């Protein structure tokens, strides 16, 4: 029943996409300044059907309708409601439906909110967006249908991979997808802008809100993924430079570059072609990332859903996109003259782009080079964190300094006067750095420089923030917050990376262990039954011998039944100053448990900083709306 409803809704959405494309082409030839109301109605229906189909899938998961293969494979009656719902996008098929929904919703919103603009630009955007929608709908229908039936109907489902049952991971795909897939709208708009000759300032204004939305959500999405890795994987790290993580980071670099370039286009009516390239590149790289992750070509530890036939489809689609973008770009782009002065705001905003492209290139080489080498030469190499540390970290230093100084410079031409205050801020940053150094221990030169430059950026941003509160004339509060967030992010990553203390030992119930200023007592162990798993909970008392501070920690070993899996849940006590991180794992045929203790300074501030970065985008969005 649900299966038929779902498929019907998807087919209706598909038919409406075709109709929208047809009607839009017809409307292009009608001399009228407004988009035909009928098209708007069609898009509204299309959006409604598409959302309904996704709701049907969620309902199927909630009521555990195992007649759907997808529900059978990814759910279980005993699963908590929250994870039943998130199961709807936990699999490849479901997430593809989510992907389509976002494409459709963005196309609808773009049409509604850009109502009064150039008609042919709007129609072309709609046409290209609907080609994208159609492409993914066909993919869904022929290859990855979430509504496929199974007979006889199984009584029980196979369950969702326990490691994926986590709140941060449940919201991770939707957030990331709004970012990834949201970028489709300015891919379509970019092509439309070239063809309809609706360029420059106007184009920048029309795409800016969508760039901000997708950028902010993608920032949050990446953060949620890292939080998941930190809490769930049990290694105490939060970023592993895994190819799958890189696939989400690469589009972020391009969107960030785009977000900055769009401002130059809006204010100075320049670098139009470059903005178009970035628009086209963002979605192309997002789809490339999806291809890498879904096709199994990467062979990473994260690849949970792979199938070469999917890969082939996405690849065909990707090639069409790339060639369409290239052909349209070369056919319609015009030569532009640039004359920026070196000491101008536009030059420094573009400095952001150089860095973003450098980081992008580095991550791309690290991710793609092993694949290329393997195909050409059958040689296998693996690129790990040392490569990224060596290539990326040194460049973070000038990047942070540019981030601090860039916004201070005027448009067009600037005379630099604030040398003294910058010098003082630099001195303050160096002093603070050495304070950190003496308080926490020693670390490398590059870390010192990174910390100094991040403090330099933080002080600059705080100074701007104070000026903002004093006289509300400073308009770019969103920029200040995002840059402050970024400075803090790098600072806290630097501190946590350098000053984490770690200890690894074996204990039996009743035993205690002393190390540095701590003592850990292993008080007891208990077996408990939860709804969909059993757990072994250890009770540990952690005593700080110096301050006599005590804390009780409960790390867990969880035994899931469907599918049978063992996961180690860290017990994490988060405080503003540091996280205490304790994991426990059993040792076979022994009463001993292996205990891993970590004290990680300022961990929570890493998440706060990342959220701060994203909130800058949202603030700018609200400001655009109220204006």
């Amino acid at each position: 029943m649900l299966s038929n409803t779902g498929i019907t809704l998807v087919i209706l959405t598909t038919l409406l996409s075709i109709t929208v494309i047809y009607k839009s082409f017809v409307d292009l030839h009608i001399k009228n300044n407004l988009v035909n109301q009928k098209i708007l109605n069609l898009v509204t229906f299309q959006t409604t059907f598409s959302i309904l189909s996704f709701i049907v899938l969620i309902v199927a998961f909630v009521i555990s309708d195992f007649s759907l293969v997808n529900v059978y494979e990814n759910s279980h009656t005993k699963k908590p409601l929250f994870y039943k719902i998130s199961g709807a996008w936990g699999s490849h098929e479901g997430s593809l439906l989510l992907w389509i929904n976002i494409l459709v919703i963005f196309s609808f919103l773009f049409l509604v909110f850009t109502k009064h603009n150039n008609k042919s630009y709007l129609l072309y955007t709609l046409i290209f967006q609907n080609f994208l929608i159609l492409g993914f709908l066909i993919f869904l229908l022929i290859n990855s249908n979430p509504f496929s039936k199974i007979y006889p109907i199984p009584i029980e489902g196979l369950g969702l991979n326990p490691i994926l049952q986590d709140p941060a991971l449940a919201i991770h795909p939707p957030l990331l997808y709004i970012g990834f897939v949201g970028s489709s709208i300015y891919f379509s708009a970019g092509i439309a802008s070239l063809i309809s000759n609706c360029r420059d300032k106007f184009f920048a204004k029309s795409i800016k809100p969508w760039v901000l939305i997708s950028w902010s959500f993608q920032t949050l999405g990446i953060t949620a993924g890292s939080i998941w890795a930190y809490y769930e994987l049990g290694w105490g790290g939060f970023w592993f430079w895994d190819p799958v993580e890189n696939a989400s980071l690469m589009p972020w670099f391009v969107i960030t570059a785009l977000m900055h370039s769009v401002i130059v286009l809006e204010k100075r009516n320049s670098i139009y072609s470059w903005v178009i390239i970035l628009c086209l590149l963002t979605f192309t790289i997002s789809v490339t990332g999806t291809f890498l992750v879904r096709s199994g070509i990467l062979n990473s530890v994260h690849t949970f859903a792979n199938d070469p036939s999917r890969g082939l489809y996405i690849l065909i689609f990707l090639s069409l996109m790339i060639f369409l973008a290239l052909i349209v770009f070369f056919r319609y782009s015009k030569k532009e003259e640039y004359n920026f002065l070196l000491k101008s705001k536009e030059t420094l905003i573009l400095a952001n782009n150089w860095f973003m492209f450098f980081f992008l290139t580095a991550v791309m080489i690290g991710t793609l080079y092993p694949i290329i080498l393997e195909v050409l030469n059958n040689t296998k190499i693996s690129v790990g964190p040392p490569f990224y540390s060596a290539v990326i970290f040194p460049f973070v230093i000038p990047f942070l300094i540019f981030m601090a100084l860039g916004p201070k410079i005027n448009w067009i031409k600037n005379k630099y006067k604030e040398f003294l205050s910058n010098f003082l801020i630099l001195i303050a940053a160096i002093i603070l750095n050495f304070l950190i150094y003496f308080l926490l221990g020693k670390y490398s030169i590059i870390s010192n420089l990174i910390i100094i430059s991040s403090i330099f950026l933080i002080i600059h941003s705080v100074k701007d923030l104070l000026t903002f509160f004093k006289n509300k004339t400073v308009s770019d509060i969103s920029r200040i917050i995002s840059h402050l967030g970024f400075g803090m992010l790098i600072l806290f990553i630097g501190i946590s990376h350098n000053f984490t203390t770690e200890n690894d030992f074996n204990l039996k119930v009743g035993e205690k262990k002393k190390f540095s200023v701590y003592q850990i007592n292993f008080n007891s162990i208990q077996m408990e039954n939860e709804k969909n798993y059993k757990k072994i909970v250890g009770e540990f008392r952690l005593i700080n011998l110096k301050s006599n501070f005590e804390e009780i920690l409960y790390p867990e070993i969880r035994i899931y039944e469907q599918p049978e899996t063992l996961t180690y849940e860290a017990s994490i006590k988060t405080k503003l100053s540091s996280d205490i991180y304790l994991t426990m794992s059993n040792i076979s045929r022994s009463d001993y448990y292996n205990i891993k203790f970590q004290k990680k300074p300022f961990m929570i501030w890493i998440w706060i900083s990342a959220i701060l970065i994203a909130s800058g985008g949202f603030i700018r969005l609200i400001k655009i709306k109220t204006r």
Partner: protein
Amino acid sequence: MKKTFLKLILFALAIFIIGTFYVGLKKTEIYDTKNLIGTNLDNFTLNSLNEDLEINQELIKENQYNLINFWASWCGPCRAEHKYLMNLNRNAKNLKLIGINFKDDKKNANKFLSKFGDPYHYSAADSEGKVSINFGVYGIPESILVDNNLKIIKKFIGPLNQDEYKDIINLTK
């Protein structure tokens, strides 16, 4: 002229990348190391974990059956399969276990073995993971069953489970 050149380069680059992806997709069997079954192991040389011995194919020829197990102390699933390795060491009479410690810190590796028990007849260290790649190993844990002629009998990708444990016991009877 300049533009045509740029066009050419960009199109060539796009074709190259897409082509590579396509070939990569078609070549997925290179990831599926199962096609190595029946072939012979290449020669290899590794230092033992405690650096007192050179471990190479000659040592393998001494035993009727060998299970080469790739593991690391940082690898969660390796802990899960460890009990099967311990049991194999105890129960499979004609089998010797050879552990290859993959991209690991030797100190941590030794700690791991003293904690969970050492099932290995020989322990080798591949701290950069380069030699393991020649065995067709990309992710760990992975185990390869080899006879004394260096012929690969079976490969086990991912942590060993009860069924695979029984399988190995039967194969090495």
